[in-house]
């Protein structure tokens, strides 16, 4: 039972490179927290500081009520699963699992019971007498998870545990790990997880909450739905969601009604967006619209963006349209059953963004200026 509190955590490496710039993060007891971000954003560095494998050069980490900054990894009550499994190559699976308990000089029968229990949960019972090199990738990863599990730690740390597996196996391991997390929680065991990945699908499907990082800074911490619907800045908006959110330069005019100039064409917006908006008149903004949040406008409708379809991808259940509007390229996703080739006349198409799903970002700082204070629309914007 433990929560994890990180306060103003900093990391300066030996070569004076500052990898982590004072981040603060709370992970509640039993929560599945995912750290996600592009390569090199210091996810691993942060995780390794929690584990105690990397010295902390500033700030504080608390596990439960203890400040663990100067504790050895073994005394922090954490378990870690590594990307390449890191099984001890000279020990049989059984001894890999039991190593931590043996170091604690637990009695033999207890170790035996614990090994059998963990092997049962992860279905590795028949592998106990094998050496790590005799295991497949998926089996090795299960052993690695078992080795973390057997310690009954306060906090589980995962560093991209699935990235060495093929897509199919990854999907099944994803489910296995989330199931395991639920099961631990039900059994009243400690189940706080910090899970590092650069794969947004993993992040969205597994995390109770997601912490999006960039260059050693936290961009946003939120649950998956909020992250998708209310990104706080252009980075999160672009990082979460597939295909990426369209981000186009625009400018704002508010005389009477709200008008936004997007890539040279002006669209009028109604009260929904106007009331959310905290940007001032004339300000340079970036407009963000997800590919899924366009609808195709009929010939007669005004107040739509007109563009040229340069490219069309049929994905089965949906169709991706690559549309050039002014100088900008937009991606539009249309469900296959709603796609009608007649909408495209002479390569030209007219698009209408769903107003309640339009985001406006300050072009300079990248912060979302269309969130307003109320949180009402999070649920309204299903997808």
């Amino acid at each position, binding site marked *: 039972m433990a929560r994890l509190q990180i306060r103003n955590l900093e990391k300066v490496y030996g070569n004076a490179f500052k990898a982590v710039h004072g981040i603060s993060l709370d992970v509640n007891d039993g929560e599945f927290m995912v750290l996600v971000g592009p390569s090199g954003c210091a996810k691993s560095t942060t995780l390794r500081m929690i*584990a105690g494998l990397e010295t902390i050069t500033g700030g504080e980490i608390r596990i439960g009520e203890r400040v663990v900054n100067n504790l*050895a990894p*073994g005394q922090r009550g*954490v378990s870690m699963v590594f990307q390449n499994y*890191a*099984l*001890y*190559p000279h020990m049989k699976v059984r001894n890999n699992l039991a*190593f931590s308990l043996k170091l604690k000089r637990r009695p033999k029968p207890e170790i035996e019971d614990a090994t059998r229990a963990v092997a049962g949960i992860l279905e590795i019972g028949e592998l106990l007498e094998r050496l790590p*090199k005799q295991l497949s990738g998926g089996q090795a990863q299960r052993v690695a998870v078992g080795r973390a599990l057997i310690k009954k730690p306060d906090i589980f740390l995962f560093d991209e545990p699935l990235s060495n597996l093929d897509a199919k196996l990854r999907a099944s391991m994803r489910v296995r790990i989330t199931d395991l997390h639920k099961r631990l929680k039900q059994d009243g065991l400690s189940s706080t997880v910090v899970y590092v990945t650069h794969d947004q699908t993993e992040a969205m499907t597994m995390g109770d909450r997601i912490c999006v990082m960039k260059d050693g800074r936290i961009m946003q911490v939120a649950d998956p739905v909020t992250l998708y619907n209310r990104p706080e800045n252009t980075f999160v908006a672009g990082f979460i969601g597939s295909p990426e959110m369209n981000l186009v330069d625009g400018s704002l005019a508010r005389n009477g009604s709200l008008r936004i100039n997007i890539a040279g064409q002006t669209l009028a917006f109604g009260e929904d967006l106007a009331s959310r908006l905290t940007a001032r008149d004339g300000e340079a903004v970036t407009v963000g619209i997800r590919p899924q949040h366009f609808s195709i406008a009929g010939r007669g409708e005004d107040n739509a963006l007109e563009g040229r379809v340069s490219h069309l991808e049929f994905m089965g259940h949906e169709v991706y349209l690559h549309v050039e509007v002014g100088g900008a390229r937009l991606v539009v996703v249309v469900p296959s059953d709603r796609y009608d080739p007649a909408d495209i006349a002479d390569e030209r198409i007219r698009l209408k963004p769903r107003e309640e799903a339009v985001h406006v970002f300050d072009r300079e700082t990248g912060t979302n200026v269309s969130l307003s204070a109320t949180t009402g629309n999070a649920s309204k914007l299903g997808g």
Partner: protein
Amino acid sequence: MAEQAAIASPRDVDIDRTLAEGRRIHAVSSAVRYAVLAAVGFIMLYPLIWLIGASFKTNAEIFSNPGFIPLNPTLDGYIRGWQTSTPYTFATFFWNTFLIILPKTIGTAISCTAVAYGFARFDFPGKRILFASLIATLLLPNVVTRIPQYLLFRDMGWLDTFLPLWVPSALAGDAFFVFMLVQFLRAIPRDMEEAARVDGANTWQTLLFIVVPMLAPALISVCLFQFMWTMNDFLGPLIYLSSVDKYPVSLALKLSIDTTEAFQWNSILAMSVLALVPSLTVFFLAQKYFIEGISTGGLKG
């Protein structure tokens, strides 16, 4: 077979014929290859074979019969060689060699592992300079340090003891071995050690339970090298040992050449053969690990 030929179309027969042709050429070429290899191998081994053969000849026959098969084999060389012209038998000399090799090899294994682990895995002030000086001693010709070392050991009162022969090595004095282990360790990912630390192992437990087993192939090579080099070391014992009862095998072989006016070649050869036995035995016993140790810099995933 006959049935098959009957069914086979003319085209198939053609293909069969070319395949058979190919197989024959292949067989001939590999026969040639093996013959050449065997011949070269024989040339390489010839001195050794001759040595073994000659150790069973009489003194006179060694010079009269150039072949390596003795005409009237005799154990004379072995019996007289073993007794030597000194009051000691070769048993004493083998025992002396053993007394030097054992602490030296074990000491080398332990000390070099600890030092290499330090260099490969920890950051400490002055690490670069210390490692550079370690490599520098590797490049230093042995001769340069002989005299200062001799004076040092003389002042310590270690002359005519085994100590100067093994103590420096047992304190990681052989830079080559440290270097070899450092290189080997660098090729092993740190993840396993980090996993062990998260599992609650301290530095020494990590070294003992995780690093040493992974280092095993390299460590075995280190021990083998040390064993063979010490077995063959002539200069060290020559400089530091003066009493005959402390001579190791390498010096004792020379002894039989000095003392008699007419050399008993067959006993010298017989004792040389015996001197080869330990090295060869150990080598063949550990061959598998030995070759693994020098050919792989690390572990496969």
